[in-house]
């Protein structure tokens, strides 16, 4: 049993390490001092009240939420349709289309960001909401396609057939049989797209304009100039918000399954 204890000890150490950033950020956001430090001194809400005086953070939070929501809805819609085509019909070139759909995952975000900037500048949508939205959809769609394809691979088509035989309209079959059975895959695709968009920095970096900045980028820029407890309080808000979605994802699909898929596609 001694071996397991050593493994357990190392595992505990690693788990503390990867969660350490959050374990220090949240307490240090409640510091009563005027500077950043851990352990924090005293307790106060002052750095949360400070957020209200910084319109750039509030604005970028709303902007990020809006962007992530629209990205999640559109990417899920488009990705699900494509996954249906790939799973349901055997056609020439389906292998190529499948590989193409997943390819944005294998290319570094840096290259996606730079190339999108080049093209968007040419067609005049660099620095706009539309530009960011398109780029975020591009990096979210592979996850949706993959998740829905996995869902469809174990899909029992005889259930659809039964629906048709009982005289149901194709839309009725889709709505009452197909969709409910695939709901976990589709919903987790949507949540994962939301998180991908909400937390993205490297692609957005090239595509934002001063008045269309996402929250992680606003924090990134602020951090390069100043390090004060304000970053901690804003970060705590983001951590809390992300946690809600992570718990949802775990409940709907299971993180382990999700990542099994994630690492294969890289």
């Amino acid at each position: 049993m001694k071996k397991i204890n050593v493994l357990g000890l190392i595992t505990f150490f690693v788990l503390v390490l990867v969660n350490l950033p959050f374990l220090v950020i949240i307490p240090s956001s409640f510091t009563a001092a005027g500077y950043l430090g851990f352990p924090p001194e005293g307790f106060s809400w002052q750095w949360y009240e400070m957020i209200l005086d910084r319109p750039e953070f509030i604005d970028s939070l709303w902007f990020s939420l809006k962007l992530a929501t629209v990205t999640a809805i559109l990417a899920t819609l488009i990705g699900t349709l494509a996954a249906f085509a790939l799973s349901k019909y055997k056609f020439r070139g389906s292998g190529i289309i499948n590989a193409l759909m997943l390819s944005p995952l294998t290319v570094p975000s840096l290259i996606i960001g730079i190339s999108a900037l080049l093209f968007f500048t040419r067609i005049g949508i660099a620095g706009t909401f539309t530009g960011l939205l398109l780029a975020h959809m591009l990096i979210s769609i592979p996850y949706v396609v993959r998740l829905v394809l996995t869902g469809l691979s174990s899909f029992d088509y005889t259930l659809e057939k039964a629906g048709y035989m009982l005289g149901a309209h194709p839309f009725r079959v889709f709505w009452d049989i197909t969709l409910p059975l695939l709901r976990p895959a589709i919903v987790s695709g949507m949540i994962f797209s939301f998180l991908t968009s909400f937390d993205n920095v490297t692609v957005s970096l090239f595509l934002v304009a001063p008045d269309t900045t996402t929250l992680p980028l606003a924090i990134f820029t602020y951090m390069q100039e100043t390090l004060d407890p304000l970053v901690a309080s804003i970060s705590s808000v983001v951590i809390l918000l992300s946690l809600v979605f992570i718990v949802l994802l775990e409940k709907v699909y299971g993180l382990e399954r999700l990542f099994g898929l994630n690492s294969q596609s890289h």
Partner: protein
Amino acid sequence: MSKRLSVTLLTAPAMILLLGVFIIPMLMMLLLSFQDENQAFSLHNYLLFVQDPYYLEVLWRTIRVSLWTVLASLLLGFPVAMYMAQATGKMRGIVTMLILAPHLISVVIRNFGWVVVLGEKGWINETLISLGLIDQPLRLLYNELGIVIGLTDSFIAYMVLAIATSLYAIDPSLNKAASILGASRVRTFFSVTLPLCLPGIIAGTTLVFSLSMSAFVTPALMGGTSVKVMPVIAYEQIMATLNWPLGAALAFLLLGSTILLVTLYTKLIETKRYKEVFAS
């Protein structure tokens, strides 16, 4: 509706997006990287890179930092994967959750946490000074060490998952057979477990290496202004110097060298394996 029409309609939105936001822009970027000051086709940017020791040093630093990250995440991640493979349902679930959940929260925020821990007035330095172990703060940030710590934190989950997946697939009766045949635990590990989870190790190491090579945010925040890696100088050429062709070339050189190194690595391991096959 005919099959062809259905397929076209269903895949069209995704394909248009892929073409418009990914394939065409990438081709444009590739063409741009071959442009000189007079917008004529030339190898100028690529030659500049090869001839300038500064760029070669940056590339070498990027590779070095990535290799350290691979080593650190392998050494720390392997025991975690072993533990997960041995743990029962509930415990495995908790460990999985705790190692994966942080991965879904913004990398900027994780790096910020590390700054609080590792900074000159950070938790570690303050603790060590108050214990009287050191009198000058240690430099744990804004150097290569800082980048490696940040990258390991970012990518260790991929390593753990890749190795754990291959460990889960090992038939437990093999271990039993080895011990019945009198093999010690160490012997069993090296003759049974390790060879069987080699695909997981290869997948994990190549994945962490590729991700580390192209990481931008962590090196920018935890490496500081003097310790730059390829993605950071590519970014600067694009956004600060506005030398887009050079920035594009740097990004492709980075991608090219990553692919080259990963291919060499997998080839090397494969030939080694074949050698073993021939020897036996």
